[in-house]
C-alpha cells in the first residue's frame, strides 16, 4: 500500500459527506435522517457531515418512492457526485414503494432500477440509529483502498 493511499484512507474514514435526496416520500424518513443530526445520535461524532450538496458528497441517501419526475434528475444527481460514491436507500419506499405501490399511483419503484444502490435500510420509517448504522457499516468497506481496488 502506498503512503498516499494510507493518507487517503485515514482522511476518508473521518470525513464522510452525506447528501440526501427526496424522490417522493411522505416526509417520515426525511425527518428521521434529520434526527440523526440531533445531539442524542450526533452523526458528526463519527465524522459524517450532512450538507445536502451532491457535488461534495460521498454518500447519497435516497428517500422516497421514485416519482416519474425524478427518473432523469436522480441520474443527473448521481453523475454529479465525485468518485468514490455510494447510494443507500432509506425506508421501504425506495425498495418496494411501500403502501404507495398500488394500482393508479404515479410511482415507479424500485430506485435500484435507476442508480446502483449499495445498501437498503427497511422500515417505515427506519429509526435514526439504523440509518446511522448503515452509513457506518458501509462507508469504510467501500472507501478503504479505493484507488488500489480500482487499479486491479
Amino acid at each position, binding site marked *: 500500500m502506498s503512503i498516499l493511499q494510507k493518507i487517503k484512507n485515514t482522511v476518508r474514514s473521518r470525513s464522510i459527506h452525506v*447528501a440526501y*435526496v*427526496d*424522490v*417522493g*416520500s*411522505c*416526509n*417520515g*424518513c*426525511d*425527518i*428521521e435522517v*434529520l*434526527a440523526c*443530526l*440531533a*445531539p*442524542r445520535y450526533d452523526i458528526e461524532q463519527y465524522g459524517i457531515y450532512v*450538507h*445536502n*450538496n*451532491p457535488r461534495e458528497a460521498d454518500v447519497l441517501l435516497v428517500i*422516497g*418512492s421514485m*416519482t416519474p*419526475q*425524478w427518473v432523469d*434528475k436522480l441520474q443527473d*444527481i448521481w453523475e454529479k457526485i465525485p468518485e468514490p460514491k455510494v447510494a443507500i436507500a432509506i425506508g421501504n419506499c425506495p425498495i418496494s414503494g*411501500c*403502501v*404507495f405501490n*398500488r*394500482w*393508479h*399511483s*404515479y*410511482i415507479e419503484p424500485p430506485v435500484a432500477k435507476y442508480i446502483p444502490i449499495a445498501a437498503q435500510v427497511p422500515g*417505515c*420509517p427506519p*429509526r435514526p440509529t439504523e440509518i446511522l448504522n448503515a452509513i457506518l457499516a458501509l462507508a469504510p468497506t467501500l472507501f478503504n483502498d479505493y484507488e488500489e481496488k480500482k487499479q486491479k
Partner: protein
Amino acid sequence: MKKNVDVSIPLGPVHPCWKEPVRLKCETSGERVLRTEVELGYMKKGIERIMRGRPWQEVMFLAERVCGICSVVHNMVFIEAMEGISGIAVPPRAAYLRVIVNELDRVASHILANFSYCYTIEHETLGMYLLNVRETVLDNLERITGSRINTAYMIPGGVRFDLTEADKAALLADLVKVEADMHRYVRMFETGPLIALRSKGIGIMSRERAIEAHAVGPTARASGLPESDLRLCHPTYQKLGFTPISRTEGDNFARIMIRFQEVFQSIDLIRKCVDRLGEGDSIRGGGFCGAGEITYRGEAPRGELTYYIKSDEYGRILDIAIRTPSIMNIEACAHYMITDATSVADVTSTFISSDPCIACNER
C-alpha cells in the same frame, strides 16, 4: 420578462436549505428579489387515487402517510370524519388521549419547523438544542403509541392503547423538562441581536393580505388572525377552554415566535387532559362505519386540514379529497411575503418560516 428584471435565479429542487424538493424561481434586480414563482410536482404520488375503492381499514394507514411530520392529525381528522359519517360516539377518556397525542405531535412539528428556520439562518447551536428537545417529545409519543412517526393510534370509536400510570408519570416529568428547556431557548431566540437582524421586519404579510391569500395556521395567526384556529370548533378543545393566540407583526420573527408560544400552549393542554383522564375508564366504544358523505376540518400543526369523504355501506371509500394547509401557505409565502425582498438569502429563510411541507402539498 419585464425590463427591470436582471436574472431569474432558480432555487432547488435539491438545495441545502430545502428538506424536500421544491423549486422557487426568483426574479431579481441586482440583489433585490422582486417576485417569486413556485414550481411543484416533484413528489406527486397520487394517494387520493390509491385510496378510492379501498376499505377504511386500509385508507387509515394511507391517510397518515400523506405527511410524515403531522401524521397524527391526518389520522385524527380521517377517523373523526368516519365517525361523523357513521355516528360513532367516542368515550371521554379516549377523546382526551387523542388530544394528548395530537398535541405531542404538534409540539414535535413546531420544534422541527423552528429548527429548520434556525438552521437556515445558520444559527446551528439553537437548532441543535431544539432538535434535542424534539427527541424527548418523540420518546413520549413512542411510549404512548408504540411508534415515533407513523403512529396509527386512533381508530373509529376510540384509541388503540391506554395511558398507563407509569407512562403518565414519565410524560408529566418530561413535560416539565421540555418546558424548562424551551423557556431558555425562546429567550435565546427572542433576545438574540443577530437573529433579530435576520428575522424582524422581513417577509411581512399584513392582516389584509393574509385574508386575501387564504393563509392558515401559524402563518395566519402571526398576521393577526386568531379565529383561523380550527381547534376552536373541536368539542374536546372547547371542553378544555382553548383560546388561540396571535401576534400582529406578520414577519419571520412573529411566525417563529408564535410556534414557540403554541408549544407552551400545547404543553398546558396536555396537562389539562391528563388531569381529566379520570372521567372514564373505557378507551373504545363500538360501532360500524357505514354509508355517508362528509366534509370534516381539523387543525393540523400547519393550519386547516380538510377531508371530504364519501363511503358506501361497508365502509369503503368511494370518493375522497384532501386539502392540506401547506397549499395555501406556500402560495401566500411566494406571492405575498417574498415580494421586494432585500436579498436571495432572505428568500430561503422566509420560505422556511412559513413551514412548507411539500409531501402534504402534493400527496
